[in-house]
């Protein structure tokens, strides 16, 4: 008999035990002849301080009881878990389907979560990054870059009324790094404050000071970690060495740590901006990216309103340059993540839909199992297992399922993350850092527990509580009444609805991809090779020198063997460079309000012919458009419409890019060409205009940073073009590199990489969702058939044909499918609106897509129900009756 069956309170336990002890001692001493009183005294003396002892024992007893309760609880848990394992192992079919379903759902969700975590959630390696703001101009309600003049004035105003503890500007530039192989590197000119804003200490050496960030200061450079590794092999002695940038010696001051890489410019070195007074007076070119660290107590709103006030004054002082600009302040983190945020969150949404389908499947499976186990529960309840004990056992079973599923899910996630990182298009910041870290593992286990316990336990409980007596009386699996069938069918409807949403989204993206493949880019990319050349301002100062150098390179290239035709352009389709200029058409007042913005291209004669630009009106630019001759210009159709709506633009005149009020330098439109999708097939054409390099405004060479693209078409083999371009440049200036050599076909394909990735990702998620939903449909119909064996047998005995039975079973199976399809169509109408920005050539609620997806989903569902339905027709009446 355990003492716990008759358990005295701890107080009485201690008292009784000690009283018994004393009594026995007294008895012992009296037996030896001691008088009673003396024996009592002696016994008490031996026991010592009784009050203290009682206290000690009570405390020890309390501790003992607690430990024992815990041990007992653990033993029961172990028992439940072992039982859970055994039950799962006894039903390998059920377990395999449940685990597979869950592993896919958990794995996919966890992988995407790890990507979201790496890209969006994890802060940048900047101390107090939430205090670092991107500060921009706000122009026509759009965040824009900042002019040097405005930046300098903001900085001055901030010094007297600080809302930022520091303001820094960065401007990306290309540098030619001399060496055995001259190399083109992306670098940035930054103000000394830039490093202070970021608050990151250099790994080696130091960053430059305010003194070094002044015109005429020492030529110094801070290296990025990548470049340091590549050019100096990570040698600490790099600091103090002199490197030649754009032909000028620069002393290496320091090296930044690898984590100092949080602009999307991925620059490799930093030089002082060292604004000269002339540059500081520049107010009409807005190209600086400005960051600020909020001063203590300041907030983004305070900073915005304070700077906006400063800007209002600047607008009044420089109305032409500033117009009505305001100030834009947003956390740097948000700008850094940018577009990746909405993409990832959308994918996360899709993954959650897959997870929900998986959960519905598991719920359905557990529900079915609960039904078949109703008898087991009834028996256990009747021999004294309390409701709570049954619940605990079910809970333990779900936990076992959840933990095994989490383990498998983590394995799936590991594989998915690897695939994702390898397949993702470039430009998603930090995606390569996605991995199975503690946060991700915790997430996986959490998802597993929630999805099995929430979705699994609830239905299991319902069936456990179902009609126990009925189950015992009939000895039949009857616990699942109509109510549970209803629940099961509801789950199927939900699965179908979720799968439909996924499928519609994926189909819309696939149709977009097909559309984009067929989109006419407006030029002929086949066989074209392009490359960039940049002339350093230090050695090519005058516009004539620049033009002559470029023209000579082109002459050499054109004369090279294997080159069919070649040309120069400040920007090729999908290529870097280029900017916007304001154009004023004749007939409008020459004032800023009349400006029409368009993208400028400086081109050599023959550019249009080389890339296959289609002439719509007039002529192309030619060698006839000489320096000093009548100024000619070619516009595309989009610009022609913008400049002269409803009129013929040919022969009309335009002011742009140069001149003064007394010397407007009108340019005549000599030709109109077709539009080109120069930012990629998924981007609308922009208004563009072309100027011959022979008539390029002097200032234009600075706008394009003396950098142009060579573009060449091969006679036969495009592989000869790269070496030919190198040789052509080497003959003009051997110290300069040719960089970004690529075929236009490749860059066209690259421009579509994000769209392809999205399509593939959503497509596979939709496929998984569909598969899981089909498993669910199959399961439910198989269950229905099992449950109605008797009825089917009777019907067939009474003369129903196999066809009748088939129709009945499939009809019943399709009812929740049809309901789910209707529900899913509604859901998809709402969900596809989120996709709208990524859709081209198809509307978010394209009826054809909706119809086709709904129809095929229903068709596939009918097929899935065909297998168990055919089994139903094999039921013989005799067998069915016997089963009853």
């Amino acid at each position: 008999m355990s003492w716990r069956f008759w358990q005295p309170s701890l107080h009485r336990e201690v008292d009784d035990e000690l009283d018994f002890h004393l009594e026995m001692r007294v008895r012992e001493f009296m037996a030896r002849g001691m008088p009673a009183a003396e024996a009592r005294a002696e016994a008490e003396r031996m026991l010592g301080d009784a009050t203290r002892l009682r206290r000690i024992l009570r405390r020890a007893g309390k501790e003992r009881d607690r430990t024992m309760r815990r041990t007992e609880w653990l033993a029961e848990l172990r028992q439940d878990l072992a039982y859970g394992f055994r039950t799962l192992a006894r039903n390998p079919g059920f377990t395999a389907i449940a685990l597979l379903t869950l592993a896919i759902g958990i794995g996919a969700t966890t992988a995407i979560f790890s990507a979201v975590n790496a890209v969006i959630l994890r802060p940048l390696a900047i101390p107090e990054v939430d205090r670092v703001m991107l500060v921009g101009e706000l122009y026509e309600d759009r965040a824009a870059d900042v002019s040097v003049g405005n930046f300098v004035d903001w900085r001055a105003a901030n010094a007297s009324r600080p809302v930022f503890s520091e303001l820094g500007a960065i401007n990306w530039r290309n540098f030619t790094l001399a060496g055995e192989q001259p190399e083109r590197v992306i670098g940035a000119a930054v103000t000394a404050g830039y490093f202070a804003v970021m608050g990151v200490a250099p790994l080696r050496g130091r960053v430059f000071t305010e003194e070094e960030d002044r015109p005429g200061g020492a030529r110094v450079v801070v290296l990025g970690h990548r470049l340091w590794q590549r050019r100096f092999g990570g040698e600490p002695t790099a600091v103090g060495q002199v490197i030649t940038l754009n032909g000028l010696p620069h002393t290496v001051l320091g090296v930044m740590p690898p984590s100092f890489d949080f602009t999307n410019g991925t620059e490799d070195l930093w030089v002082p901006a060292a604004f000269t007074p002339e540059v500081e007076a520049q107010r009409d070119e807005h190209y600086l990216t400005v960051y600020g660290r909020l001063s203590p107590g300041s907030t983004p709103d305070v900073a915005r309103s304070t700077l906006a006030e400063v800007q209002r004054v600047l607008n009044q002082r420089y109305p032409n340059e500033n117009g009505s600009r305001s100030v834009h302040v947003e956390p740097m983190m948000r700008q850094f993540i940018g577009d990746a945020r909405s993409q990832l969150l959308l994918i996360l949404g899709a993954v959650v839909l897959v997870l929900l389908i998986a959960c519905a499947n598991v719920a359905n499976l557990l529900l079915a199992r609960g039904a078949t186990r109703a008898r087991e529960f009834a028996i256990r309840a009747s021999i004294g297992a309390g409701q709570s004990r049954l619940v605990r056992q079910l809970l333990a079973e779900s936990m076992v399922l959840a933990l095994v599923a989490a383990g498998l899910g983590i394995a799936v996630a590991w594989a998915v993350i690897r695939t994702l990182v390898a397949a993702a298009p470039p430009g998603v910041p930090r995606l390569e850092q996605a991995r199975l870290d503690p946060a991700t593992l915790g997430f996986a286990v959490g998802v597993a527990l929630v999805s099995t316990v929430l979705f699994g336990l609830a239905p299991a409980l319902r069936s456990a509580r179902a009609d126990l007596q009925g189950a015992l009386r009939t000895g039949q699996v009857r616990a699942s009444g109509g109510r549970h069938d209803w629940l099961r069918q509801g789950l199927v409807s939900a699965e179908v609805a979720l799968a439909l949403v996924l499928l519609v989204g994926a189909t819309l993206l696939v149709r977009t991809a097909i559309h984009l493949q067929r989109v006419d880019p407006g030029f002929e990319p086949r066989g074209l090779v392009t490359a960039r050349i940049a002339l350093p301002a230090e050695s090519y100062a005058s516009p004539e020198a620049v033009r002559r150098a470029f023209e000579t390179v082109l002459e050499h290239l054109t004369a090279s063997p294997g080159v069919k035709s070649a040309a120069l352009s400040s920007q090729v389709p999908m290529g870097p460079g280029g900017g916007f200029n304001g154009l004023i058409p004749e007939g409008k007042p020459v004032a800023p309000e009349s400006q029409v913005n368009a993208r400028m291209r400086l081109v050599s004669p023959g550019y249009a012919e080389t890339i296959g630009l289609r002439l719509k009106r007039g002529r192309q630019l030619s060698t006839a458009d000489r320096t000093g001759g009548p100024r000619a210009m070619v516009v595309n159709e989009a610009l022609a419409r913008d400049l002269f709506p409803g009129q013929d633009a040919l022969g009309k005149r335009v002011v742009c890019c140069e001149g003064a009020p007394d010397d407007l330098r009108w340019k005549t439109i000599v030709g109109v060409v077709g539009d080109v999708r120069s930012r990629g097939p998924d981007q609308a054409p922009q208004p563009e205009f072309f100027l011959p390099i022979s008539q390029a405004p002097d200032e234009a060479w600075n706008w394009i940073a003396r950098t142009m693209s060579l573009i060449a078409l091969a006679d036969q083999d495009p592989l000869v073009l790269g070496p030919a371009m190198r040789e052509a440049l080497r003959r003009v200036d051997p110290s300069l590199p040719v960089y970004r050599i690529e075929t236009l076909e490749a860059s066209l394909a690259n421009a579509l990489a994000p769209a392809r990735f999205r399509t593939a990702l959503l497509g596979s998620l939709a496929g998984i969702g569909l598969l899981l939903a089909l498993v669910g449909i199959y399961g439910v119909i198989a269950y229905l058939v099992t449950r109605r064996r008797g009825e089917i047998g009777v019907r067939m005995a009474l003369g129903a044909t196999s066809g009748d039975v088939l129709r009945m079973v499939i009809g019943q199976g399709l009812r929740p499918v049809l309901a789910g399809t209707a529900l899913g169509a509604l859901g998809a109408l709402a969900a596809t609106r989120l996709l709208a920005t990524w859709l081209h050539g198809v509307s978010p609620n394209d009826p054809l897509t909706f119809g086709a997806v709904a129809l095929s989903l229903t068709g596939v569902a009918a097929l899935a129900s065909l297998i168990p339905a055919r089994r139903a027709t094999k039921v013989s009446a005799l067998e069915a009756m016997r089963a009853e």
Partner: protein
Amino acid sequence: MPGPDSDFLQGTLDVLILKTLSWGSRHGYAIARWLEDSSAETIRVEEGSLYPALYRMERKGWIEASWGMSELGRRAKFYQLTPSGRARLRAEIAAWRRLSGAVGRILEARG
């Protein structure tokens, strides 16, 4: 009872109690008496330490207690060894033999 050798003494008391219980269940008084008798009163177990030791060992799962009738018809708390207590006793005895053998060899060694 603090002191440098309290762990040793406590450990010794635990082993003695385990040994006492190895023949069957006994109540606290019987354990104390048996220890006195069999050591010819060399070892006088402080009764103030005996009972805390019993509670502690109960918590460790070496012994378990049940209420029953004593030989004199009084309700008494009886202690008995659990399987884990029995294993513990075997381990302690082996360790004690090793230790006493080693100490004995050292003490009887001749220069």
